[in-house]
C-alpha cells in the first residue's frame, strides 16, 4: 500500500475535456487571452485537479463523500468560475445567442443543473460511472460524459444569473427564486442520501483492492453509514450555502447598492 497522496492517475477523458474547453475559450475570444482568462483557466485547472488527484481516487474506490466533493466542485465552483472568466467584452455572436436564450428560458439552466445532479445519482447510473478496473492511463467514456456534463451544466446553470451580457441577466427577484429552488432541488437529494440506509450505492461495497478500507474506518473514523451521511449533508448544506450566498449577493445588488448613504 503506497501512501495515499501518490494515487494520482492520468485520465485521458479529463485531458480531452481540458483541451476541448480551452479550445472553446479560444473560439469565443478569438484566440486571445482577455481579462478574466485567469478565472476561466483557474476553473478549468480546478477541474483537472479534482479529476486527477487522489481525491478522485478515493471517490472512485472508497468514499462517496469524496466523490461528492468532486461532483459539487465541478458543478458549483468550476462552472461559475469559467462563466465569469468568459471574455466579457467579446461580442461573439454565440455568447449573445446563449445569453438571449437563457434570459428567455432561465429555467432551462436550472433544469440542466438539477437534472444532471439527480441523473448521476440514480443508483444504477451511479454504478456505471466507474470503470471496472483502475489503471494509471485510462479512458472511460461514461466518466468522460459525467465530468463533461457536470461542467457544462454548471456553466448553463449560472448563465441566467452571471451572464457575460449584463443586460441579459435575469432580474434579482427571479434570481433569488431561481437559486432558492435550486437549493431545494439539491437539498432533497442530499436529504435522501442522508437519511436513506447506507446500502444505497453498492459500488462501495466491492473488495478493498488498495487496502485503504482499514485506514479510513479506524483512523479517519468514517464508517459506511457515516460516509453516506456526510455525502448527503455536503450535497445539502455547503451546496445550499453556495446557492443562498448567491441569493444574498443578488439581494445586496437589489437593495443595498442603491440605498441612500
Amino acid at each position: 500500500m503506497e501512501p495515499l497522496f501518490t494515487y494520482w492517475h492520468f485520465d485521458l477523458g479529463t485531458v480531452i475535456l481540458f483541451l476541448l474547453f480551452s479550445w472553446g475559450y479560444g473560439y469565443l475570444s478569438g484566440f486571445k487571452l482577455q481579462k478574466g482568462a485567469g478565472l476561466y483557466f483557474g476553473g478549468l485547472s480546478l477541474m483537472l485537479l479534482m479529476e486527477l488527484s487522489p481525491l478522485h481516487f478515493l471517490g472512485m474506490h472508497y468514499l462517496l463523500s469524496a466523490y461528492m466533493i468532486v461532483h459539487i466542485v465541478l458543478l458549483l465552483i468550476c462552472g461559475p468560475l469559467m462563466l465569469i472568466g468568459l471574455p466579457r467584452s467579446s461580442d461573439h455572436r454565440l455568447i449573445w445567442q446563449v445569453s438571449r436564450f437563457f434570459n428567455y428560458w432561465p429555467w432551462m439552466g436550472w433544469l440542466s443543473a438539477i437534472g444532471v445532479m439527480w441523473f448521476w445519482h440514480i443508483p444504477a447510473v451511479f454504478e456505471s460511472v466507474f470503470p471496472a478496473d483502475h489503471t494509471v492511463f485510462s479512458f472511460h467514456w461514461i466518466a468522460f460524459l459525467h465530468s463533461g456534463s457536470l461542467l457544462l451544466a454548471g456553466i448553463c446553470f449560472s448563465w441566467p444569473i452571471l451572464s457575460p451580457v449584463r443586460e441579459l441577466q435575469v432580474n434579482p427577484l427571479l434570481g433569488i427564486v431561481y437559486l432558492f429552488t435550486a437549493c431545494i432541488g439539491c437539498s432533497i437529494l442530499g436529504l435522501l442520501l442522508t437519511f436513506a440506509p447506507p446500502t444505497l450505492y453498492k459500488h462501495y461495497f466491492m473488495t478493498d483492492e488498495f487496502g485503504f478500507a482499514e485506514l479510513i474506518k479506524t483512523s479517519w473514523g468514517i464508517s459506511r453509514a457515516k460516509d453516506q451521511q456526510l455525502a448527503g449533508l455536503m450535497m445539502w448544506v455547503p451546496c445550499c450555502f453556495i446557492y443562498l450566498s448567491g441569493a444574498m449577493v443578488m439581494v445586496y445588488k437589489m437593495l443595498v447598492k442603491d440605498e441612500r448613504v
Partner: protein
Amino acid sequence: MSQGSHVISIFNPQSAEAWKLSPLNNYLIIACSFIMIVVVGLLIYVTIKFRAKAGDAEPKQIYNNRTVEAFMIGIPFLMVSFFFYQTVKVMNETEPTVQGQVPTVVITGRQWWWQAVYPGTTVVTANEIHLPAGKKVLLQLESQDVIHDWWIPSFGPKMDMIPGVKNYLWVTIGKPGVYEGACSEFCGKQHAWMRIKVIADSPADYQQWLLNKSKAALPPADTLALAGAVIFNKKSCADCHSIRGTPAQGKSGPDLTHLASRTTLLAGMMTNTKEHIKRFINNPEGVKPGVRMPRFIFKKDTVNALVAYLSNLK
C-alpha cells in the same frame, strides 16, 4: 445504599458527561448576559437621551452606516463561530459511537413506566433503576409503544426512546446517591407520572444488588400472603405481570418479582405502602387515570390477600 437528596437541575452535574457539557452552559449564559446587557443598556441610553421635546425639529436623517453594520454582522458571527466550535468539540467528546458494546441495562419506555433489563443477568425491574457509580455505563434505550424520552438533568444529555429504534447513552455517575428525572417527550395521558429514579450504588453494592435481584421471588410468608399468591395466579394478574419463580409470566405489565424493595409505585407517583397498593388495585383508573391495568371487582379479603402477597416480595 445512600439516599442523599439532590437538587434536580442541569446546573448540578453529577456525571462525567454532564461535567463535559457544563462549561458550554456557562459560556452560553455569559454570552447571553453580555448581549442582554448591551441591548438593554443601549435601550435605556437611547430612551433617556433621545426623548422628543416640544418643538423639536426633525432629527438628522441617518440612513445607514457601513461600519456599524459590519460590527452588527461581525460580532454575532464571531460569537456563533465560537459556539459552533465548542458544540462540535463537546458533542464528539460526550457521544462516542457505540460499536457492539453490550449495554449495562436495556431500558424500555412503556405507557407509563420504565422497564429495565440487565443483559447477562436475569434481573428485570421497573421504574427504579440501579446503576454502578464511578463506572462508564452504557444505556440502551428503546420504546414499546410511543416515543418517550430519558432525562435525568444531573446526568447531562437526554435521549429519545423511539419505537423500532435503538438509542444509546453513556453515563458515568460520580458518586452513589438517588437521582431523579422524568420522561421528557409527551407520551399520552400519564406523561406527568412517568418519573425516573436512578439509584447509583457503589460497585460492590451494585454487584450485591444484582445478585439479590437475580434470585426468584420469596415464597409467601404467611397464610394471607399464600392466599394472595394463589389469587394472583388464578385471577388475571399473572396475564400481565410476572413474578420470577412462580407461574406468573405476563409481559405487558411491570415485573413484580421484588416489588416490595422499591420505594415508590407507579413511576414515582406515590410511596410504596400497603395502603397505596390497595388503593391502586381497588381502582387503578381512579389513582392513575389512563393506566393500562383494568379495574377488577375484588372482595375486600381478596384485595387484602393480594396486598399481603405483593408487599412481601422483597
